[in-house]
């Protein structure tokens, strides 16, 4: 029971992480395409500046919870995906530094350099997270000793790449919507136009992914056994339709919330299908890591549950407050009055 609760929380943590960091990764990846001048570039940095840091802690927490609640899964997952994770790690470091350092000095080459680094280090993790998760859904070649029998290129299979493209497109869309809220003037319009264009490939990728999942993974088995679970992919699909509708009506916030529902629904769709596996083995079902064989002791799970039940609502409360505090459009005043962004 405790294991199952933690499995659900584990899925939720990843979903929240993708929902939040998804938009700032997307916005960073859109920077070279959307911003036409220095002010617009700085607007994009300002649009994500107050949030990216707190968003990234959801990743650290998701990682930490994997470590704490399912140590064996953490160990095998992270060592199997070694190179992919290292790439993500380098990107996250570069991104953080680009955010903090770009505005510190004037010079053209300084700022252009950081802009390119921000672009790469935002787009690549979006893609790689998708590749990693699609591979987890599909199962990876781990043997009974829990040793990974593949390489980085094993992960770059068609289904993995499809997952990567889906995530990338989803985050770009999510980020464009965010800029549609936070930016003003022409940049706002350009961002919303871009979102409308991105919605089409996103829809196609989502449909292809849902179909490919039938053939490439075992995820639907749970859905056939427990039909109530269909509510999760339904949430994603409904969100996908709603977000476009709201966008048409010019309801920027609603559109972004609907797109958040897509991210959460899509992540939980995979996670619910995965249960009771955390990391299925593609070569030997007995080698799969499950909530049973990978879980921590009941005492650890209990204590952590207590901490989570107390702390996570507090975290959500102050993060909501911060989002509320900085919900306004970025204005020329904000750009003039700045602390280095």
């Amino acid at each position, binding site marked *: 029971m405790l294991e199952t609760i933690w499995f659900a929380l584990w899925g939720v943590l990843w979903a929240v992480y993708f929902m939040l960091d998804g938009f700032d990764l997307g916005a960073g990846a859109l920077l070279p395409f959307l911003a036409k001048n220095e002010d617009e570039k700085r607007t994009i940095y300002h649009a994500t500046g107050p949030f990216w840091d707190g968003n990234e802690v959801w990743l650290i927490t998701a990682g930490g919870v994997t470590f704490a*609640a399912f*140590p064996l899964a953490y160990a095998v997952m992270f*060592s199997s995906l070694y190179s992919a994770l290292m790439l993500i790690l380098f990107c996250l470091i570069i991104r953080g530094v680009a955010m903090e350092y770009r505005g510190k000095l004037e010079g053209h080459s300084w700022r252009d350099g950081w802009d390119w680094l921000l672009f790469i280090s935002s787009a690549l993790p979006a893609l790689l997270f998708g590749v990693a998760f699609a591979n987890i859904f599909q199962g990876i070649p781990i043997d009974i000793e829990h040793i990974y029998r593949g390489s980085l290129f094993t992960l770059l299979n068609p289904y993995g790449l499809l997952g990567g493209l889906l995530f990338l497109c989803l985050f770009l869309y999510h980020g464009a919507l965010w800029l549609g809220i936070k930016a003003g003037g022409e940049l706002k319009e350009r961002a919303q136009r871009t979102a409308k264009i991105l919605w089409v490939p996103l829809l196609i990728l989502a449909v292809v992914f849902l179909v490919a999942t039938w053939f490439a993974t075992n995820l639907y088995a749970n859905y056939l056994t427990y039909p109530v679970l269909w509510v999760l992919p339904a949430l994603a699909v409904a969100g996908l339709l709603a977000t476009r509708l709201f966008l048409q009506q010019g309801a920027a916030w609603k559109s972004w919330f609907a797109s958040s529902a897509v991210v959460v629904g899509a992540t939980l769709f995979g996670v619910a299908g995965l249960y009771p596996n955390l990391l299925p083995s593609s070569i030997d079902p007995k080698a799969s890591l499950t909530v049973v064989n990978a879980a921590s*002791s009941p*005492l650890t799970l209990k204590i*952590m549950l207590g901490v989570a039940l107390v702390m996570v609502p507090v975290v959500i409360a102050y993060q909501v407050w911060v989002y509320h505090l900085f919900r306004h459009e970025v204005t020329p005043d904000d750009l003039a009055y700045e602390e280095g962004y």
Partner: protein
Amino acid sequence: MEVLILSRLQFAAATFFHFLFVPLTLGLSILVAIMETKWVRSGDEEYKRMAKFWGKLFLINFGLGLVTGITLEFQFGTNWSRYSAYVGDIFGSLLAIEATAAFFLESTFIAVWIFGWERISPKLHCVAIWLVAFAGTLSAYWILAANAWMQHPVGYVMRNGRAELANFFDVITQRFAVIEFVHTVSGAYILAGFFVMGISAYHLLRKREVSFFTKSFRIALVFALVFSLFEVVQGHFNGGEVAEAQPSKLAAMESHWKTQKMAPMYLLQVPNLSGDGNLIEWIPIPGALSILAYGDPHAEVKGLSDFKPEDRPPVFLTFISFRIMVGLGMLFVLLTVWGFLIRKKLLDNPKYLRIMMLAIPLPYIANEAGWMVAEVGRQPWIVWGLMRTSDAVSPVDPTQVAVSLIAFILFYGLLGVVAFWLMARFAKKGPEPLPAAQG
């Protein structure tokens, strides 16, 4: 074997680099918070400028401390997967709680502080930086409790082929954790104090913004003085703790080979590089080591010869690092006491100011040396007495680790240069000039 060495080097590089930024984050956040509090209380704009100037340096440093911390968390899984699976039940939960209870707070309110100057009241803004400071220190406690558990595992049972939690309270309140926390955090506060004093000295020597930098200097001086004194006294008790819990580490710190009562220390002692004895032992002070370790000259101190060679930590590195740390710690007391005596006439003492300017790197060296003692001295164990480092490493392809190690070194090297160059640039530039008086 290859993966082991590469992974150890990589973890060493990652920790070393991470800890170039963490101490300043811990200490400077408090100093900035003190300055901002003075502004809120007195309304004196000079304190606001101080909070902004030191805050800018704080932020350049903060970002790197944060992102390089993620590396460490990831590496337990990527490079030390057998360790993660073996102790995740305890160690992992401490990291997860740290993220939930402290890291969120720090990362969220730093943004409020950066972007909130014009959007919230000064009081609330000041609360934000105190929350950042508090969360940073709280974060340190969880991380150090996790490290203390590797040094001195308690509150666990061996079950299902791994260490499982038996008593959470014991894990987070054990003496080792408390002492390690106090020692590390004080070291960090000293570093921040010397950082502020050193940069202030640079400007005072040039007679620039004299009032601004005199005030900054004095705030940092009191801060650094208190913690330097505290650190020396407290460090002594650490010695006793290590003697009991980790006798082979203590013996390596002193390069002490023969188990004996009235164990001596030497005025000059040099271990040989091969790590099997001393090259030079001059002028023994009988019983000094026994007193240091157990507070009793007749106490028996176990020597390295009584440990099997495979159970001994690398002696030379532990010994030298320990001496660097202790020597510098004493020097910090001297420098801060000297500064306190002349605090009213800093400008008349250019020699002192010049020394303080040059002293900026010293607490960095002391902090890193302290970690060398703690971590190198813990070898060959990753968890003392429970798991050897060599059994902890991931079963991964050495090429991957070699590539990532090279990438880390190049990448971190470059980032370090940029970060310190930026800090130096803004430090030298000094605070923003006062806005022209209005109407």
